[in-house]
């Protein structure tokens, strides 16, 4: 099953997002090996060149390291991964808050809704 | 590459042709055997056989051309055109391979028809031939200045030349028919009708002479003109395939 990709955004950006999420959620643990560009391109259903571009970006940001003969590995720098997790979560919260603004909730009301939701679960 | 193309052309046309000529040979053989010792009860069988045989001779003579023309059209312009015209072979190779197949089968067909006639006569014709060989030989030397073996050799060369003519004419008419993709069959039939008429007129003119010398000269002329014609038509086909080929 190929990845669900938004047709309106550049694909390589979406691939970067997806791999970052996978690293942060532990699908690719720190120091773990990433699949080859070809394998990932096949899985995602995208052009290998596009995937290569995404990988190069990730390498540039230091999240991924390339060992010439053995492939690509997630960085062992756990601090970096933690900071990435923070910024990703922050982005999600900001998006959520923007959405909820439409409903006109105060901060207190929002926290109440969250707690009530947790109880019900 | 040329031999590979030839292999596939032969693979494609041989089954049908072997069937037709094989059937003709077998029918001739059987007919020949029963012709000379039949009685009233097998008369009907004999007549049926004769009819079948006549039919088979007709089918064989036309069949070889139909099968080979069809093969060329299919692989150059119709169903298999994409496949064959994408192969890494030159236009010359595409044409020559078909020409080779045509020549091989035309010669084979003449041999098989000849054999059929021999079988039909229950080898009587062959016996006669052996008996009168010397006489034939001296008659030929006297009138046409050519030995029996020489005549056989010349006939063989002429058969091959004719086959070459059939092949290049086939390529030519197919190319013309391709310029009218909606009326393809009609154009092919018209071209062949015209060709047969012209050729028949030539043969009649060559044959209707009074002296042996004139006949010999005419035949030689026919031979050389046919050879040149084959070459010219081949070159025209080459030009049409290289510059005016459109697979729509």
């Amino acid at each position: 099953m190929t990845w669900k990709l938004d047709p309106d955004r550049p694909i390589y950006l979406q691939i970067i997002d997806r791999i970052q999420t996978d690293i942060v959620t532990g699908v690719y643990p720190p120091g773990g090996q990433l699949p080859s560009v070809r394998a990932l391109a096949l899985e995602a259903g995208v052009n290998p060149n596009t995937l290569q571009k995404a990988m190069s970006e990730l390498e540039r940001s230091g999240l991924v390291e390339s060992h010439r003969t053995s492939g690509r590995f997630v960085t062992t720098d756990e601090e970096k991964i933690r900071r990435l997790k923070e910024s990703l979560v922050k982005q999600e919260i900001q998006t959520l808050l923007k959405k909820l603004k439409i409903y006109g909730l105060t901060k207190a009301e929002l926290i109440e809704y969250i707690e009530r939701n947790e109880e019900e679960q | 590459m040329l031999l590979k193309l030839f292999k596939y052309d032969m693979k494609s046309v041989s089954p049908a042709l072997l069937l037709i000529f094989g059937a003709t040979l077998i029918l001739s053989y059987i007919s020949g055997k029963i012709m000379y010792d039949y009685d009233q009860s097998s008369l009907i069988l004999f007549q049926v056989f004769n009819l079948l045989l006549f039919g088979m001779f007709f089918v064989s003579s036309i069949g070889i051309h139909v099968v080979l023309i069809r093969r060329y059209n299919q692989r150059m312009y119709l169903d298999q055109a994409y496949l064959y015209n994408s192969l890494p072979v030159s236009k010359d190779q595409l044409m020559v391979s078909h020409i080779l197949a045509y020549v091989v089968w035309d010669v084979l067909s003449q041999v098989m028809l000849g054999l059929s006639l021999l079988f039909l006569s229950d080898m009587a014709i062959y016996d006669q031939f052996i008996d009168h060989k010397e006489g034939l030989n001296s008659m030929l030397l006297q009138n046409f200045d050519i030995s029996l073996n020489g005549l056989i050799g010349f006939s063989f060369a002429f058969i091959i030349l004719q086959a070459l003519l059939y092949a290049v004419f086939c390529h030519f008419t197919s190319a013309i028919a391709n310029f009218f993709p909606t009326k393809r069959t009609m154009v092919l039939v018209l071209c062949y009708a015209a060709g047969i008429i012209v050729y028949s007129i030539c043969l009649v003119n060559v044959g209707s002479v009074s002296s042996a010398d004139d006949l010999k000269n005419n035949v030689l002329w026919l031979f050389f003109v046919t050879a040149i014609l084959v070459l010219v038509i081949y070159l025209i086909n080459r030009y049409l395939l290289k510059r005016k080929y459109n697979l729509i």
Partner: protein
Amino acid sequence: MNILDCHDLTKIYPGQTTALDHINLSCADGKIIGLLGPNGSGKTTLVKLIQGLLTPTEGEVLIDGKKPGPETKAMVSYLPDLMSFDESMKIRDLFWLYQDFYADFDKSRAEDMIQKLQLDPSEKIKLLSKGNKEKVQLILCMARNARLYLLDEPIGGVDPATRDFILHTILSNYQRDKASILISTHLIADVENILDEAIIIQKGHIQLHESVETIREQYGCSVNEYFKEAFKCY
């Protein structure tokens, strides 16, 4: 060396409209390129000119710097929009034919793909369903290690599962450094994700030749959306 160059390439069918009008095009090596446009825009004409199945009225087309001929056909693997076989052959007879003529044909890879599709190599072509015939043709095309793959409408008229299979086969057989793929199709949305570049052609003219990512960044929408906007019919 560019894999494809067109200079003033023109094709006028006898007694009809101009199919291609003085096209100028250059495609670099090693990319998956989409030739996109509506039916009758000249896509198939261009593909056939590249393959040497049509002769140009004017101008020229060069593949790796060479004119279409036996040399280019040895390095171009063509998938036609119509099926073209000797139907009396069996699947494995076709494999033998391809092996006979194409030095770059990988028979074991072809047999592997046939097996994955659960097709019987001793089956006669004429007994196969339309979908299976198309798959066989695709396998023959992709089992060659060609420098340029020319795919003419590979996914038109097949069901979504087969479509996925075709795109998957194209991707998995594509060796990035050595080959280029030119996919001609009007189903833009389905192929967009696998393309490096898009060439949009309409009424015999090239309207756009750009990388897919650039189009998305510049116009903020997919190539499909861009096309719908730019070539509105109403």
